[in-house]
């Protein structure tokens, strides 16, 4: 066996501005990432508490395999009660923080309580624990300015978690940014966790992993062999080895458009005329012509490189981490149809600190309400900067998400589940993802059980017809259970393709966890963990006041969607069967 495993939990109480270091409770030792954050939230947060009040707690946890040399294992989980959904939330992001936490031996950072008064604070995490300091200079500043200033203060290698003005104003679409390896931003995007951090008056958390003890492995040789096998499965799969690195995630534009599931004009059409202009194939050509990079990893050890560096016509940097969801929802659903405007919007959303899915869907709703015309990209950019970024009354409406914007303007076509905006797949024409949207304890979230590959590409062995109801509940259940281990190991979600298609993947993953911790778990453990975590999350939601009635799509999804005239026709009973396990 290897060296002693160092592990600790950092706890910050913002009510009395104190910090402490705790040992890891025995029952949490086998947990990481989402499994840990959701177990913690369920155990320590009163489900009925106000999410922006004293009772809510914010937790950050690296995955079980984060900080090791295994590829694509550096994802970070943030958890709390969501102010957007009113239920439990785990939001998962890339960047460098998870690897730094893991190398420092930090199993989780917990932030509880609320400070009195108007003073803003920062936290600093290093080998000695966590400390609190007052912050003035960066209050009101965007996330990019936070990164730039902190790198001047603390050095280029500093890790950063921060909120923008939207988080400071406790807007429900506010996200938490994570610095990536090239000083750009990834996001804990969904569910308004930036507002929770803002409620605790923490502008940023800086991370110094100098003299970190590093991650110890119970069996380094076994680990190395398994890591090699896992990397091979990722590289060998055409989706992760070729498609994503070549075209980025917006390669999905043409696929989803062809399948007639492309949210267009606030979810009124299933195909967008200008799809070629915003497709991954086009984006690659534009990026190469302007001296950007079609490949970019958000952290060391990434072998998929889904991100990119997108430059403007003059070759100046505009944005990175330019994803399908953002591109589709602004490009087609808000009809902007122009990659350059969408790229600037992506940058501003990262900078002011709002979720690019929630915010993009909100613009579709606002356009239907007549707040601005469909397709007016320049007005979107102005509103992001001057309304949301400045916290005007209109900005606060837009920054509070699609559900609240729809209510404010009396719109009935409001694509949300549990008040969280529906991502860039219309559930009428890809029904498996619709089951994930309605049943996930997170609210509408495509990443909770990504049925797209199974419904369209035959991932897992055969195509489950996207337009039929058959087998979709079982499919989504299977995927949601399996996704828990992905979110808990610190794995990037894109391993879903090799995980479904390559029989070596799951045994290699099991071997990695066993070799890391000196355990002898079998693949059955993965299923048990997934079921337990989902049930824990669901129980929290029920105790918080959510019910089966919240596991439904909005009424307008009964309207037929062209080109297939697809309708959402699951009964409540059929949906509720999801929980029969």
């Amino acid at each position, binding site marked *: 066996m290897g060296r002693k495993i160092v592990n600790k939990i950092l706890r910050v109480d913002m009510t009395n501005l104190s910090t402490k270091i705790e040992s890891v409770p025995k029952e949490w030792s086998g947990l990481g990432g989402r499994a840990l954050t959701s177990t913690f939230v369920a155990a320590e947060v009163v489900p009925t508490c106000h999410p922006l009040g004293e009772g809510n707690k914010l937790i950050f946890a690296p995955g079980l395999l984060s900080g090791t040399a295994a590829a694509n294992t550096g994802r970070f989980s943030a958890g709390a009660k969501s102010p957007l959904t009113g239920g439990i939330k785990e939001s998962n992001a890339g960047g460098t923080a998870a690897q730094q936490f893991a190398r420092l031996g930090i199993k989780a950072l917990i932030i509880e309580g609320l400070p009195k008064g108007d003073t803003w604070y920062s936290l600093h995490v290093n080998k000695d624990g966590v400390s609190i300091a007052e912050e003035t200079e960066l209050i009101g500043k965007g996330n990019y300015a936070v990164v730039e200033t902190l790198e001047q203060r603390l050095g280029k290698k500093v890790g950063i978690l921060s909120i923008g003005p939207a988080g400071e104003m406790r807007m429900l679409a506010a996200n938490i940014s994570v610095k990536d390896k090239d000083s750009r931003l990834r996001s804990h995007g969904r569910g308004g966790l930036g507002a929770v951090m803002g409620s605790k008056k923490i502008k940023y958390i800086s991370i110094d992993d100098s003299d970190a003890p590093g991650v110890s492995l119970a069996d380094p040789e076994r680990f190395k062999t398994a890591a090699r096998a896992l990397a091979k499965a990722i590289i060998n*799969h*055409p*989706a*992760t080895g*070729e*498609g*994503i690195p*070549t*075209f*980025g*995630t*917006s*390669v*999905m534009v*043409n*696929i989803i458009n*062809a*399948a*007639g599931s492309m949210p267009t004009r606030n979810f009124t059409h299933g195909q967008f005329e200008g799809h070629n202009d915003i497709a*991954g*194939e086009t984006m690659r050509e534009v990026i190469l012509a302007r001296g950007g990079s079609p490949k970019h990893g958000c952290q060391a050890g990434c072998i998929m490189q*889904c991100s990119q560096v997108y430059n403007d016509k003059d070759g100046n940097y505009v944005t990175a981490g330019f*994803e*399908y*969801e953002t591109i589709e929802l602004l490009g087609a659903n808000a009809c902007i149809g122009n990659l350059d405007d969408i790229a600037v919007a992506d940058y501003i959303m990262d900078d002011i600190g709002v979720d690019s899915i929630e915010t993009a869907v909100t613009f579709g709703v606002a356009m239907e309400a007549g707040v601005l015309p469909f397709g007016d990209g320049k007005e979107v950019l102005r509103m992001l900067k001057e309304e949301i970024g400045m916290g005007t009354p209109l900005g606060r409406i837009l920054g509070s998400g699609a559900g609240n914007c729809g209510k404010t303007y009396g719109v009935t076509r409001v694509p949300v589940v549990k008040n969280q905006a529906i*991502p*860039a*797949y219309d559930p009428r024409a890809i029904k498996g993802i619709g089951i994930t949207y309605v049943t996930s304890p997170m609210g509408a979230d*495509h990443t909770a059980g*990504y049925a*797209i*590959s199974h419904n*369209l*590409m*035959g*991932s897992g062995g055969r*195509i489950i*017809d*996207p*337009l039929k109801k058959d087998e979709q509940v079982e499919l989504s259940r299977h995927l949601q259970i399996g996704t828990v281990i992905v979110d808990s190991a610190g794995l990037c979600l*894109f391993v*879903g*393709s090799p995980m479904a298609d390559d029989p070596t993947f799951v045994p290699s993953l099991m071997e990695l966890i066993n070799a890391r911790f000196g355990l002898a778990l079998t693949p059955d453990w993965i299923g048990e963990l997934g079921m337990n975590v989902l049930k824990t999350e669901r129980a929290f939601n029920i105790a918080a006041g959510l019910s089966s009635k919240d596991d439904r799509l909005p009424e307008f999804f009964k309207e037929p969607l062209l*080109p*297939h005239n697809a309708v959402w026709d699951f009964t409540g009973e059929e949906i509720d069967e999801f929980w029969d396990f």
Partner: protein
Amino acid sequence: MRITVKLFATFRDGLFKEAQRDVPEGGTLGQVIAELGIAEKDVGMVLVNGRHAPMGLVLSDGLVLDIFPLLAGG
């Protein structure tokens, strides 16, 4: 008879984005894909007029084929 073939992602390399193809009577989807030099195992999704179709499908005049390699993302 004539059909329209649209190719995506890496399938465009050395081929085309969109082209009209003449197909003999009784020609199947699988034959068109084979003639393009695309191995069946590399095909992730093929839609005929927007719907999934089996390789053995007998084609008819005016159909539109969308052919994608195995991809994921989002």
